[in-house]
């Protein structure tokens, strides 16, 4: 009897959880269509909160405290590991974020799936200061949903004492000469991306043959033992400690690693690479829309951008901040900024000219990417 009771109870619970999952989704859909950026309820009761999700190590934490002091809004700041992990949390309905900060291609996917709400730019006066180069980009062509947060390039980080001569081409990522010392980035888009650049194809190709060719290139290198492992954040430990020679990673993170290991160098390969924009957006089912706008405006200010740039080493899209940063650095540290490093952080136009932004891929290409990515691990 008891056993049956327990089983019934758990069945009921499971059913309840499933149903509530569905009903939450339904509420979201209807609630989203009547979309007035209100949030009035929460701002009147004195307990204003805001739920933010960003990447790890991606903000000067003092800015959060300052925002809380200025506005009295309590910020619940959480982090996600990758665009894909963020997407699955959003899809699960397990999170109640208001503001997120995904990368370009993920933003277009979220817009496509109607998960973001248009911003009220009258509440974000600092949007004016964003450099025109970062407005109306392909992921948000009319710039209705986003305010850029950072931008940068993907490239090769390598240890000059462990490889022969300077690296200039993606071929280093497939070269047996560095066998066992190459780190593959643990995200299918960037990993296949570097192979596609090397082969001279577009990273946004939907041609199955080209993608399979890129896969084969990586799979061959893997079977020859070129790769030591697939890494995301472990890359810091491995590159800083001289435990691996070559890795694909982001420019901003290279500058962080350089502080611990001066032997590291960074290059945007001659074949071209990805340049990305991470932008702040508000989810369609956000509870605290008013607060979310205040937060975005706060982070878009020149002051915040300067401090973030100094802290996380990713370039700011704020035109004033970009221009003032070398002076700001000199004032803060009492020595001039190394312009070579500055150009790695904020890539000059001639580098950007050979780079390409990721566009959202159609569903079937995404499935192909995922299938091939798993096949690589068989």
């Amino acid at each position, binding site marked *: 009897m008891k056993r049956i009771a327990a089983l019934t109870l758990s069945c009921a619970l*499971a059913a309840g959880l499933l149903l509530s999952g569905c009903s939450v989704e339904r509420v979201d859909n209807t609630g989203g269509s009547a979309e007035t950026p209100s949030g009035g309820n929460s701002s009147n009761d004195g307990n204003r909160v805001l739920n933010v999700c960003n990447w790890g190590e991606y903000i000067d934490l003092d800015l959060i405290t300052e925002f809380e002091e200025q506005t009295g809004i309590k910020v619940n700041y959480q982090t996600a590991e990758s665009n894909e992990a963020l997407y*699955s949390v959003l899809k699960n309905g397990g999170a109640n974020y208001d503001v997120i900060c995904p990368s370009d291609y993920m933003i277009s996917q979220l817009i496509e799936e109607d998960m973001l709400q248009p911003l009220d730019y009258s509440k974000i006066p600092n949007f004016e200061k964003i450099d025109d180069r970062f407005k109306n980009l392909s992921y948000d062509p009319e710039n209705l949903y986003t305010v850029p947060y950072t931008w940068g390039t993907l490239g090769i980080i390598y240890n000059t004492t462990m490889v022969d001569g300077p690296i200039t081409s993606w071929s280093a990522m497939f070269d047996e000469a560095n066998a066992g010392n190459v780190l593959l980035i*643990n995200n299918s888009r960037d990993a296949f991306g570097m192979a596609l650049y090397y082969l001279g194809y577009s990273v946004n190709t939907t041609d199955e043959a080209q993608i399979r060719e890129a896969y084969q290139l990586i799979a061959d290198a893997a079977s020859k033992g070129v790769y030591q492992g697939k890494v995301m954040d472990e890359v810091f430990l491995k590159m800083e400690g001289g435990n691996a020679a070559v890795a694909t990673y982001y420019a901003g993170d290279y500058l962080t690693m350089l502080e611990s290991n001066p032997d590291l160098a960074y290059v945007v390969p001659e074949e071209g690479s990805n340049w990305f924009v991470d932008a702040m957006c508000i989810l369609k089912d956000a509870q605290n829309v008013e607060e979310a706008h205040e937060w975005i405006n706060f982070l878009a200010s020149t002051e915040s951008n300067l401090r973030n740039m100094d802290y996380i080493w990713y370039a700011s899209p704020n035109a004033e901040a970009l221009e003032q940063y070398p002076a700001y650095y000199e004032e803060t540290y009492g020595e001039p900024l190394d312009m070579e490093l500055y150009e790695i952080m904020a890539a000059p136009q001639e580098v950007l000219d050979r780079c390409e932004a990721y566009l959202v891929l159609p569903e079937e290409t995404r499935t192909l990417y995922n299938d091939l990515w798993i096949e690589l691990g068989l």
Partner: protein
Amino acid sequence: MKNNRSFLAIPYVVWMALFVVAPIIMVVIYSFTTADFSFTTDNFTRMGTFAVIFTRSFKLAIIATLICLLVGYPLAYAMAREGKEFQRVAMLLIMLPMWVNFLLRTYATMSILENNGILNQLFSAIGLFDFLNNTMGTDIQYFRMIGTQGAVVLGMVYNYLPFMILPIYSVIIKLDQSLLEAARDLGANSLGVFRKVIFPLSLPGILSGVTMVFVPSVSTFAISRLLGGGIQMMLGDLIEQQFLGGAYNPHLGSAIALVMMIIVVVCMWVMNHFGEGEEQAVML
């Protein structure tokens, strides 16, 4: 349990229902449905593709379990035979690593095994590589340890060894001394006593030890990703890919998890039949 104290079990029953039974039911539901929750068995027909990953995971978990048993049993046996003081110290040493979080320990293991890690630096400092290079004419700068299957097995053994030692120890220490004396009186030598009395009586401990090492080893993903590099996936990585990776297919992920659970349950069931007739071994 025909007494009026069964209400004491209520907190646990509620707990089990909420966090064990309900999730399993959800896994079953997910694994038999598509994204829009209509019935399908497609998730299972795709399973053949992953046979390599299943084999690899089970192989490494079995190796790790065997090593744990080979190392853990003699230690547990010796501990149980020794005096109180030895037991206290040994127990402390076994438990000590478990006071540190498992992920931190794995990160630490990683920095020990790296190409330029603590172990390789030690070898280099004592001139091992120079010696090898001079005598064998090779050109080794370091031993490749990180990113190998050996590193994964090491990580599993390191993390789960206490779970093998403790149940075996607690069974052996409770053995009735008079049984051993009787065996000796009846003419059994030391080997005979061990083979005919101690070992069969410690089987329940072995079985729960094996279960507690094997099950987490099969499904681990942090160890395989950090120490094994993740180039060759294991089951845990594969399932994680379905939930948190670009793939985002919780239905396929649930199906893989379900198949894994079934295989593990079958393994445990077969194992427990070895111990039949002895005391009931604790399953799962």
